[in-house]
Protein backbone atom coordinates (compact mmCIF):
# COMPACT_ATOMS: atom_id res chain seq x y z
CA UNK A 1 0.00 0.00 0.00
CA UNK A 2 1.32 3.44 -0.89
CA UNK A 3 1.15 6.36 1.56
CA UNK A 4 -1.80 7.73 -0.43
CA UNK A 5 -3.61 4.41 -0.17
CA UNK A 6 -2.91 4.29 3.55
CA UNK A 7 -4.36 7.77 3.87
CA UNK A 8 -7.51 6.64 2.03
CA UNK A 9 -7.74 3.62 4.30
CA UNK A 10 -7.49 5.75 7.44
CA UNK A 11 -10.10 8.15 6.07
CA UNK A 12 -12.39 5.21 5.38
CA UNK A 13 -11.97 4.00 8.95
CA UNK A 14 -12.56 7.52 10.29
CA UNK A 15 -15.75 7.82 8.26
CA UNK A 16 -17.05 4.72 10.05
CA UNK A 17 -15.92 5.83 13.48
CA UNK A 18 -17.10 9.43 13.11
CA UNK A 19 -20.02 9.13 10.69
CA UNK A 20 -21.45 12.54 11.53
CA UNK A 21 -18.24 14.43 10.74
CA UNK A 22 -17.26 16.15 7.50
CA UNK A 23 -13.77 14.81 6.79
CA UNK A 24 -13.18 16.76 3.59
CA UNK A 25 -11.47 19.64 5.34
CA UNK A 26 -9.30 17.57 7.65
CA UNK A 27 -5.90 19.24 8.23
CA UNK A 28 -3.37 16.39 7.97
CA UNK A 29 -0.91 18.08 10.31
CA UNK A 30 -3.30 18.87 13.18
CA UNK A 31 -4.31 16.21 15.71
CA UNK A 32 -7.56 14.39 14.94
CA UNK A 33 -8.68 15.15 18.45
CA UNK A 34 -8.58 18.93 17.77
CA UNK A 35 -10.71 18.61 14.67
CA UNK A 36 -13.08 15.74 15.32
CA UNK A 37 -15.33 14.75 18.19
CA UNK A 38 -13.20 11.77 19.19
CA UNK A 39 -12.28 10.26 22.52
CA UNK A 40 -9.99 7.46 23.65
CA UNK A 41 -12.56 4.78 22.75
CA UNK A 42 -12.67 6.16 19.20
CA UNK A 43 -8.89 5.96 18.93
CA UNK A 44 -9.07 2.37 20.03
CA UNK A 45 -11.49 1.86 17.15
CA UNK A 46 -8.77 2.99 14.72
CA UNK A 47 -6.42 0.44 16.25
CA UNK A 48 -9.09 -2.28 16.14
CA UNK A 49 -10.12 -1.57 12.57
CA UNK A 50 -6.50 -1.67 11.34
CA UNK A 51 -6.14 -4.98 13.14
CA UNK A 52 -9.40 -6.37 11.75
CA UNK A 53 -9.01 -5.16 8.19
CA UNK A 54 -5.25 -5.57 7.66
CA UNK A 55 -3.99 -7.54 10.65
CA UNK A 56 -1.74 -4.59 11.59
CA UNK A 57 -0.74 -4.78 15.24
CA UNK A 58 0.01 -1.52 16.99
CA UNK A 59 1.56 -1.79 20.47
CA UNK A 60 -0.05 0.43 23.08
CA UNK A 61 3.08 2.50 23.60
CA UNK A 62 2.95 3.49 19.94
CA UNK A 63 -0.64 4.78 19.97
CA UNK A 64 0.59 8.42 20.11
CA UNK A 65 1.80 7.96 16.53
CA UNK A 66 -1.85 7.96 15.48
CA UNK A 67 -2.43 11.55 16.60
CA UNK A 68 -2.77 13.17 13.16
CA UNK A 69 -3.17 12.00 9.59
CA UNK A 70 0.43 12.85 8.72
CA UNK A 71 1.88 11.04 11.73
CA UNK A 72 -0.45 8.08 11.19
CA UNK A 73 0.52 7.66 7.54
CA UNK A 74 4.21 8.03 8.39
CA UNK A 75 3.90 5.42 11.10
CA UNK A 76 1.91 2.96 9.00
CA UNK A 77 3.84 3.26 5.73
CA UNK A 78 6.67 0.82 6.61
CA UNK A 79 4.20 -1.48 8.36
CA UNK A 80 1.69 -1.64 5.49
CA UNK A 81 3.89 -1.30 2.40
CA UNK A 82 3.55 -4.99 1.58
CA UNK A 83 -0.19 -5.18 2.30
CA UNK A 84 -2.45 -4.80 -0.73
CA UNK A 85 -5.31 -2.30 -0.46
CA UNK A 86 -8.74 -3.87 -0.16
Amino acid at each position, binding site marked *: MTPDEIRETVLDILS*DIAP*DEDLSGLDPDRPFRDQLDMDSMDFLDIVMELRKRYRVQIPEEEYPALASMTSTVEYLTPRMKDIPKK
Partner: protein
Amino acid sequence: MIAVRPEDHRIVITGVGLTAPNGNTLSEFRESLLCGRSGVTRYETRYFGQTLAGVCGFDQLRHQRRKDLRRGTRAGSIGIYCAHEAIRDAGLDWENVDRSTVGIYIGVTEHGNVETENEIYQIKEYGYDTQFWSHHHNPRTVANNPAGEISLNLGITGPHYTLGAACAAGNAGVIQGVQMLRLGECDLALCGGVSESIHTFGIFASFHSQGALAWHEDPTKASRPFDADRNGIVVAEGGCIFVLERFSDARARGAKIYGEIVGYAMNSDAYDFVLPHPDRQAECIELALRRAGLNPDDVDIVSTHATGTTTGDVQECLALRRVFGDGGPTRFNNTKSFIGHAMGAAGALELAGNLPAFQDRVCHPTINLDRLDPECDLPGLVANQPREMPKVDVVLNNSFGMLGINSVVIVRRV
Protein backbone atom coordinates in the same frame (compact mmCIF):
# COMPACT_ATOMS: atom_id res chain seq x y z
CA MET B 1 -62.07 4.87 50.01
CA ILE B 2 -58.73 6.03 48.68
CA ALA B 3 -55.86 5.91 51.15
CA VAL B 4 -54.94 9.43 52.21
CA ARG B 5 -51.29 10.23 51.77
CA PRO B 6 -49.24 13.26 52.68
CA GLU B 7 -49.14 15.71 49.77
CA ASP B 8 -45.51 14.96 48.95
CA HIS B 9 -46.21 11.21 48.88
CA ARG B 10 -48.80 11.54 46.15
CA ILE B 11 -47.02 10.63 42.92
CA VAL B 12 -48.49 11.39 39.52
CA ILE B 13 -47.68 10.63 35.90
CA THR B 14 -47.16 13.81 33.91
CA GLY B 15 -45.39 12.59 30.80
CA VAL B 16 -45.34 9.51 28.58
CA GLY B 17 -42.76 8.66 25.94
CA LEU B 18 -43.01 5.36 24.15
CA THR B 19 -42.21 3.28 21.15
CA ALA B 20 -44.30 0.20 20.48
CA PRO B 21 -44.52 -2.02 17.42
CA ASN B 22 -47.78 -0.26 16.54
CA GLY B 23 -47.07 3.32 17.55
CA ASN B 24 -44.31 5.77 18.42
CA THR B 25 -46.41 8.14 20.53
CA LEU B 26 -49.09 7.50 23.10
CA SER B 27 -51.76 8.82 20.73
CA GLU B 28 -50.62 6.56 17.86
CA PHE B 29 -50.41 3.61 20.22
CA ARG B 30 -53.85 4.29 21.65
CA GLU B 31 -55.35 4.64 18.19
CA SER B 32 -53.88 1.26 17.24
CA LEU B 33 -55.32 -0.34 20.37
CA LEU B 34 -58.76 1.07 19.65
CA CYS B 35 -58.81 0.14 15.97
CA GLY B 36 -57.31 -3.35 16.39
CA ARG B 37 -54.00 -2.65 14.64
CA SER B 38 -51.35 -5.25 15.42
CA GLY B 39 -47.64 -4.54 15.36
CA VAL B 40 -46.51 -8.13 14.83
CA THR B 41 -44.67 -8.93 11.60
CA ARG B 42 -42.51 -11.59 10.04
CA TYR B 43 -38.95 -11.36 11.27
CA GLU B 44 -35.72 -13.16 10.56
CA THR B 45 -32.98 -13.52 13.10
CA ARG B 46 -29.47 -14.98 13.02
CA TYR B 47 -29.29 -18.79 13.31
CA PHE B 48 -32.94 -19.15 14.26
CA GLY B 49 -34.29 -18.05 10.89
CA GLN B 50 -37.87 -17.04 10.13
CA THR B 51 -40.06 -16.15 13.05
CA LEU B 52 -42.46 -13.42 14.16
CA ALA B 53 -41.78 -10.34 16.26
CA GLY B 54 -43.04 -6.95 17.30
CA VAL B 55 -40.64 -4.48 15.67
CA CYS B 56 -40.47 -0.76 16.40
CA GLY B 57 -39.99 1.90 13.75
CA PHE B 58 -39.16 5.03 15.76
CA ASP B 59 -36.72 7.59 14.36
CA GLN B 60 -33.42 6.72 16.04
CA LEU B 61 -31.76 9.86 14.70
CA ARG B 62 -34.27 12.21 16.29
CA HIS B 63 -32.26 12.42 19.51
CA GLN B 64 -28.98 10.70 18.64
CA ARG B 65 -26.13 11.05 16.16
CA ARG B 66 -25.07 8.17 13.98
CA LYS B 67 -21.94 7.89 16.09
CA ASP B 68 -24.05 7.42 19.22
CA LEU B 69 -25.95 4.61 17.54
CA ARG B 70 -22.70 2.94 16.52
CA ARG B 71 -21.33 3.08 20.02
CA GLY B 72 -24.43 2.34 22.07
CA THR B 73 -27.11 -0.31 22.24
CA ARG B 74 -30.60 -0.67 20.83
CA ALA B 75 -31.95 -0.65 24.39
CA GLY B 76 -30.09 2.60 24.99
CA SER B 77 -31.58 4.14 21.84
CA ILE B 78 -35.07 3.04 22.76
CA GLY B 79 -34.59 4.53 26.23
CA ILE B 80 -33.22 7.81 24.87
CA TYR B 81 -36.09 8.18 22.43
CA CYS B 82 -38.69 7.44 25.11
CA ALA B 83 -37.04 9.71 27.71
CA HIS B 84 -36.93 12.69 25.32
CA GLU B 85 -40.52 12.17 24.25
CA ALA B 86 -41.68 11.81 27.86
CA ILE B 87 -39.93 15.02 28.90
CA ARG B 88 -41.44 16.88 25.94
CA ASP B 89 -44.87 15.43 26.68
CA ALA B 90 -44.60 16.50 30.33
CA GLY B 91 -44.21 20.12 29.24
CA LEU B 92 -41.20 20.57 31.48
CA ASP B 93 -38.97 23.62 31.14
CA TRP B 94 -36.15 21.14 30.65
CA GLU B 95 -33.41 23.71 30.08
CA ASN B 96 -34.02 25.00 33.58
CA VAL B 97 -34.53 21.67 35.33
CA ASP B 98 -31.78 20.86 37.84
CA ARG B 99 -30.50 17.64 36.24
CA SER B 100 -29.03 16.47 39.54
CA THR B 101 -32.56 16.04 40.88
CA VAL B 102 -33.69 13.69 38.11
CA GLY B 103 -33.59 9.93 38.68
CA ILE B 104 -33.61 7.33 35.90
CA TYR B 105 -35.06 3.90 36.76
CA ILE B 106 -35.39 1.57 33.81
CA GLY B 107 -36.73 -1.98 33.95
CA VAL B 108 -35.12 -4.63 31.78
CA THR B 109 -35.91 -8.29 31.33
CA GLU B 110 -32.34 -8.97 30.27
CA HIS B 111 -29.47 -6.89 28.98
CA GLY B 112 -26.22 -7.79 27.26
CA ASN B 113 -27.34 -10.84 25.34
CA VAL B 114 -27.65 -8.90 22.09
CA GLU B 115 -24.22 -7.34 22.37
CA THR B 116 -22.50 -10.54 23.47
CA GLU B 117 -24.06 -12.54 20.64
CA ASN B 118 -22.92 -9.87 18.17
CA GLU B 119 -19.33 -9.97 19.39
CA ILE B 120 -19.16 -13.75 19.30
CA TYR B 121 -20.63 -13.71 15.81
CA GLN B 122 -17.99 -11.20 14.71
CA ILE B 123 -14.95 -12.93 16.23
CA LYS B 124 -16.05 -16.14 14.56
CA GLU B 125 -14.71 -14.46 11.40
CA TYR B 126 -11.31 -14.26 13.12
CA GLY B 127 -11.20 -17.83 14.37
CA TYR B 128 -12.54 -16.80 17.78
CA ASP B 129 -9.33 -14.84 18.47
CA THR B 130 -10.30 -12.58 21.38
CA GLN B 131 -7.93 -9.80 20.32
CA PHE B 132 -10.71 -8.90 17.88
CA TRP B 133 -13.24 -8.59 20.71
CA SER B 134 -14.47 -4.99 20.92
CA HIS B 135 -13.48 -2.58 23.66
CA HIS B 136 -17.10 -1.37 23.42
CA HIS B 137 -18.36 -4.68 24.79
CA ASN B 138 -18.20 -3.81 28.48
CA PRO B 139 -19.89 -0.39 28.35
CA ARG B 140 -22.56 -1.87 26.10
CA THR B 141 -23.27 -4.83 28.35
CA VAL B 142 -23.05 -3.44 31.87
CA ALA B 143 -26.49 -3.89 33.35
CA ASN B 144 -27.03 -0.15 33.82
CA ASN B 145 -26.40 0.53 30.11
CA PRO B 146 -29.92 1.50 29.00
CA ALA B 147 -30.36 3.92 31.91
CA GLY B 148 -26.77 5.16 31.61
CA GLU B 149 -27.18 6.01 27.93
CA ILE B 150 -30.19 8.15 28.87
CA SER B 151 -28.10 9.91 31.51
CA LEU B 152 -25.28 10.58 29.02
CA ASN B 153 -27.59 11.77 26.28
CA LEU B 154 -29.65 14.12 28.46
CA GLY B 155 -26.93 15.25 30.83
CA ILE B 156 -28.82 13.91 33.83
CA THR B 157 -26.57 13.69 36.88
CA GLY B 158 -29.03 12.22 39.37
CA PRO B 159 -29.07 8.47 40.02
CA HIS B 160 -29.48 6.08 37.12
CA TYR B 161 -29.80 2.33 37.10
CA THR B 162 -31.74 -0.51 35.62
CA LEU B 163 -33.92 -3.00 37.43
CA GLY B 164 -33.58 -6.57 36.28
CA ALA B 165 -37.04 -7.95 36.90
CA ALA B 166 -37.78 -10.31 34.01
CA CYS B 167 -41.11 -9.45 32.48
CA ALA B 168 -42.28 -7.59 35.57
CA ALA B 169 -39.59 -5.00 34.87
CA GLY B 170 -41.75 -2.25 33.37
CA ASN B 171 -43.86 -2.08 36.50
CA ALA B 172 -40.75 -2.45 38.66
CA GLY B 173 -39.23 0.65 37.05
CA VAL B 174 -42.37 2.64 37.77
CA ILE B 175 -42.52 1.40 41.36
CA GLN B 176 -38.89 2.37 41.88
CA GLY B 177 -39.66 5.84 40.58
CA VAL B 178 -42.54 6.23 43.04
CA GLN B 179 -40.42 5.03 45.93
CA MET B 180 -37.46 7.29 45.13
CA LEU B 181 -39.74 10.34 44.85
CA ARG B 182 -41.29 9.50 48.21
CA LEU B 183 -37.84 9.09 49.75
CA GLY B 184 -36.77 12.45 48.35
CA GLU B 185 -33.98 10.85 46.34
CA CYS B 186 -35.13 12.74 43.25
CA ASP B 187 -37.67 15.39 42.26
CA LEU B 188 -38.43 13.95 38.83
CA ALA B 189 -38.33 10.29 37.94
CA LEU B 190 -37.88 8.98 34.42
CA CYS B 191 -39.02 5.42 34.82
CA GLY B 192 -40.49 2.48 33.00
CA GLY B 193 -38.93 -0.23 30.88
CA VAL B 194 -37.18 -1.03 27.62
CA SER B 195 -36.59 -4.12 25.54
CA GLU B 196 -34.15 -4.87 22.74
CA SER B 197 -34.83 -8.59 23.06
CA ILE B 198 -35.76 -9.25 19.43
CA HIS B 199 -32.10 -8.65 18.55
CA THR B 200 -30.92 -11.72 20.44
CA PHE B 201 -31.57 -15.00 18.68
CA GLY B 202 -31.28 -16.73 22.03
CA ILE B 203 -34.62 -15.55 23.33
CA PHE B 204 -36.45 -16.95 20.30
CA ALA B 205 -34.50 -20.22 20.41
CA SER B 206 -35.05 -20.63 24.14
CA PHE B 207 -38.80 -19.99 23.98
CA HIS B 208 -38.98 -22.34 21.02
CA SER B 209 -37.14 -25.08 22.92
CA GLN B 210 -39.54 -24.48 25.79
CA GLY B 211 -42.50 -24.92 23.44
CA ALA B 212 -43.55 -21.36 24.19
CA LEU B 213 -42.85 -19.43 20.97
CA ALA B 214 -45.91 -18.42 18.99
CA TRP B 215 -46.39 -19.06 15.30
CA HIS B 216 -49.25 -18.24 12.97
CA GLU B 217 -49.35 -17.90 9.20
CA ASP B 218 -50.87 -14.48 9.72
CA PRO B 219 -48.42 -12.66 12.01
CA THR B 220 -51.12 -10.31 13.28
CA LYS B 221 -53.00 -13.30 14.69
CA ALA B 222 -50.05 -14.98 16.40
CA SER B 223 -50.38 -13.25 19.77
CA ARG B 224 -53.68 -14.55 21.11
CA PRO B 225 -53.89 -14.65 24.90
CA PHE B 226 -56.90 -16.50 26.32
CA ASP B 227 -57.73 -18.07 22.95
CA ALA B 228 -57.98 -21.86 22.81
CA ASP B 229 -55.63 -21.90 19.80
CA ARG B 230 -52.86 -19.86 21.38
CA ASN B 231 -49.44 -21.42 20.99
CA GLY B 232 -47.00 -19.15 22.78
CA ILE B 233 -45.28 -15.78 23.01
CA VAL B 234 -44.49 -13.30 20.26
CA VAL B 235 -41.29 -11.52 21.28
CA ALA B 236 -41.34 -7.74 20.83
CA GLU B 237 -39.05 -4.79 21.31
CA GLY B 238 -40.19 -1.47 22.66
CA GLY B 239 -39.97 1.03 25.44
CA CYS B 240 -42.07 3.24 27.62
CA ILE B 241 -40.81 5.87 30.03
CA PHE B 242 -42.99 7.95 32.30
CA VAL B 243 -42.23 11.26 33.91
CA LEU B 244 -43.31 10.93 37.53
CA GLU B 245 -43.36 13.77 39.98
CA ARG B 246 -44.99 14.71 43.24
CA PHE B 247 -48.58 15.83 42.89
CA SER B 248 -47.72 19.06 44.69
CA ASP B 249 -45.00 19.88 42.13
CA ALA B 250 -47.17 18.92 39.18
CA ARG B 251 -50.04 21.04 40.40
CA ALA B 252 -47.75 24.00 41.12
CA ARG B 253 -46.51 24.06 37.53
CA GLY B 254 -49.96 23.41 36.07
CA ALA B 255 -48.91 20.11 34.52
CA LYS B 256 -51.22 17.79 32.64
CA ILE B 257 -51.76 14.78 34.90
CA TYR B 258 -52.42 11.35 33.40
CA GLY B 259 -53.15 9.75 36.73
CA GLU B 260 -51.92 9.11 40.25
CA ILE B 261 -50.10 5.96 41.24
CA VAL B 262 -52.15 5.03 44.27
CA GLY B 263 -50.96 1.49 44.82
CA TYR B 264 -48.31 -1.00 43.92
CA ALA B 265 -46.91 -4.30 45.08
CA MET B 266 -44.20 -6.76 44.22
CA ASN B 267 -43.77 -10.27 45.58
CA SER B 268 -42.26 -13.63 44.68
CA ASP B 269 -43.71 -17.05 43.95
CA ALA B 270 -40.74 -18.94 45.43
CA TYR B 271 -42.10 -21.81 43.40
CA ASP B 272 -40.60 -22.47 39.95
CA PHE B 273 -38.19 -21.10 37.34
CA VAL B 274 -40.88 -20.59 34.72
CA LEU B 275 -44.29 -21.69 35.99
CA PRO B 276 -46.35 -18.94 37.61
CA HIS B 277 -48.19 -19.36 40.88
CA PRO B 278 -51.75 -17.96 40.94
CA ASP B 279 -51.91 -17.72 44.73
CA ARG B 280 -48.85 -15.47 44.87
CA GLN B 281 -50.13 -13.41 41.92
CA ALA B 282 -53.47 -12.95 43.72
CA GLU B 283 -51.64 -11.94 46.89
CA CYS B 284 -49.67 -9.37 44.93
CA ILE B 285 -52.87 -7.87 43.48
CA GLU B 286 -54.52 -7.88 46.90
CA LEU B 287 -51.52 -6.17 48.50
CA ALA B 288 -51.55 -3.43 45.88
CA LEU B 289 -55.30 -2.93 46.39
CA ARG B 290 -54.85 -2.79 50.16
CA ARG B 291 -52.10 -0.19 49.88
CA ALA B 292 -54.32 1.85 47.58
CA GLY B 293 -57.23 1.52 49.98
CA LEU B 294 -59.35 0.07 47.17
CA ASN B 295 -61.71 -2.87 46.86
CA PRO B 296 -61.61 -5.11 43.79
CA ASP B 297 -64.91 -3.65 42.57
CA ASP B 298 -63.33 -0.19 42.54
CA VAL B 299 -61.06 -1.29 39.68
CA ASP B 300 -62.53 -0.44 36.30
CA ILE B 301 -59.89 -2.00 34.05
CA VAL B 302 -57.38 -4.73 34.74
CA SER B 303 -54.58 -4.74 32.20
CA THR B 304 -53.67 -8.43 32.22
CA HIS B 305 -50.18 -9.80 31.82
CA ALA B 306 -51.21 -12.91 29.84
CA THR B 307 -48.61 -13.74 27.20
CA GLY B 308 -50.37 -16.40 25.15
CA THR B 309 -48.79 -19.45 26.74
CA THR B 310 -50.99 -22.41 27.54
CA THR B 311 -50.27 -22.47 31.25
CA GLY B 312 -49.56 -18.84 32.07
CA ASP B 313 -52.85 -17.46 30.83
CA VAL B 314 -54.87 -19.99 32.82
CA GLN B 315 -52.87 -19.32 35.97
CA GLU B 316 -53.41 -15.57 35.75
CA CYS B 317 -57.14 -16.15 35.25
CA LEU B 318 -57.19 -18.24 38.42
CA ALA B 319 -55.57 -15.36 40.29
CA LEU B 320 -57.95 -12.81 38.80
CA ARG B 321 -61.04 -14.90 39.66
CA ARG B 322 -59.79 -15.27 43.20
CA VAL B 323 -59.49 -11.50 43.62
CA PHE B 324 -62.27 -10.17 41.43
CA GLY B 325 -64.78 -13.03 41.66
CA ASP B 326 -67.30 -13.66 38.93
CA GLY B 327 -69.62 -11.02 37.62
CA GLY B 328 -68.16 -7.87 39.15
CA PRO B 329 -67.95 -4.56 37.32
CA THR B 330 -64.24 -4.88 36.46
CA ARG B 331 -63.23 -5.28 32.82
CA PHE B 332 -60.11 -7.11 31.66
CA ASN B 333 -58.03 -6.45 28.57
CA ASN B 334 -54.68 -7.50 27.13
CA THR B 335 -52.25 -5.39 25.13
CA LYS B 336 -49.84 -8.19 24.20
CA SER B 337 -52.49 -9.45 21.78
CA PHE B 338 -51.60 -6.38 19.66
CA ILE B 339 -47.86 -5.99 20.06
CA GLY B 340 -46.56 -9.27 21.41
CA HIS B 341 -44.54 -9.47 24.58
CA ALA B 342 -42.30 -6.42 24.88
CA MET B 343 -40.45 -8.02 27.79
CA GLY B 344 -38.90 -5.33 30.00
CA ALA B 345 -41.09 -2.71 28.37
CA ALA B 346 -44.29 -4.73 28.55
CA GLY B 347 -45.58 -3.58 31.93
CA ALA B 348 -44.93 0.08 31.20
CA LEU B 349 -46.34 -0.03 27.66
CA GLU B 350 -49.45 -1.90 28.76
CA LEU B 351 -50.06 0.62 31.53
CA ALA B 352 -49.56 3.53 29.13
CA GLY B 353 -51.98 2.08 26.60
CA ASN B 354 -54.72 2.16 29.23
CA LEU B 355 -54.11 5.68 30.58
CA PRO B 356 -56.15 7.48 27.90
CA ALA B 357 -59.18 5.49 29.11
CA PHE B 358 -59.43 7.97 32.00
CA GLN B 359 -60.41 10.54 29.36
CA ASP B 360 -62.19 8.58 26.63
CA ARG B 361 -63.77 5.97 28.97
CA VAL B 362 -63.07 3.18 26.50
CA CYS B 363 -61.52 -0.13 27.44
CA HIS B 364 -59.42 -1.44 24.57
CA PRO B 365 -59.90 -5.16 23.99
CA THR B 366 -57.81 -8.26 23.80
CA ILE B 367 -57.79 -9.18 20.12
CA ASN B 368 -57.51 -12.50 18.31
CA LEU B 369 -59.99 -14.05 20.70
CA ASP B 370 -61.77 -16.26 18.17
CA ARG B 371 -62.33 -19.30 20.36
CA LEU B 372 -62.20 -18.52 24.06
CA ASP B 373 -60.42 -21.09 26.20
CA PRO B 374 -63.09 -22.03 28.80
CA GLU B 375 -60.40 -21.89 31.49
CA CYS B 376 -59.75 -18.24 30.56
CA ASP B 377 -63.40 -17.24 30.57
CA LEU B 378 -63.26 -14.14 32.72
CA PRO B 379 -66.74 -12.59 32.80
CA GLY B 380 -65.42 -9.09 32.23
CA LEU B 381 -63.02 -9.94 29.42
CA VAL B 382 -63.27 -7.33 26.68
CA ALA B 383 -62.94 -9.37 23.51
CA ASN B 384 -61.97 -8.11 20.07
CA GLN B 385 -63.86 -4.81 20.14
CA PRO B 386 -63.33 -1.83 22.43
CA ARG B 387 -65.96 -1.32 25.08
CA GLU B 388 -67.35 2.00 26.21
CA MET B 389 -67.43 2.23 29.98
CA PRO B 390 -69.74 4.23 32.24
CA LYS B 391 -66.63 5.42 34.07
CA VAL B 392 -62.90 4.72 34.21
CA ASP B 393 -61.38 5.86 37.47
CA VAL B 394 -58.97 3.06 38.33
CA VAL B 395 -56.65 0.93 36.18
CA LEU B 396 -54.74 -2.01 37.64
CA ASN B 397 -51.73 -3.26 35.68
CA ASN B 398 -50.38 -6.79 36.10
CA SER B 399 -46.86 -7.75 35.10
CA PHE B 400 -45.28 -11.06 36.01
CA GLY B 401 -41.98 -12.71 35.14
CA MET B 402 -39.76 -15.76 35.23
CA LEU B 403 -38.33 -16.98 38.52
CA GLY B 404 -41.68 -16.01 40.02
CA ILE B 405 -41.52 -12.22 40.15
CA ASN B 406 -44.89 -10.50 40.37
CA SER B 407 -45.74 -6.81 40.13
CA VAL B 408 -48.91 -4.75 40.21
CA VAL B 409 -49.37 -1.00 39.70
CA ILE B 410 -52.65 0.80 40.31
CA VAL B 411 -53.34 4.19 38.77
CA ARG B 412 -56.29 6.40 39.58
CA ARG B 413 -57.75 9.25 37.58
CA VAL B 414 -57.00 12.62 39.17
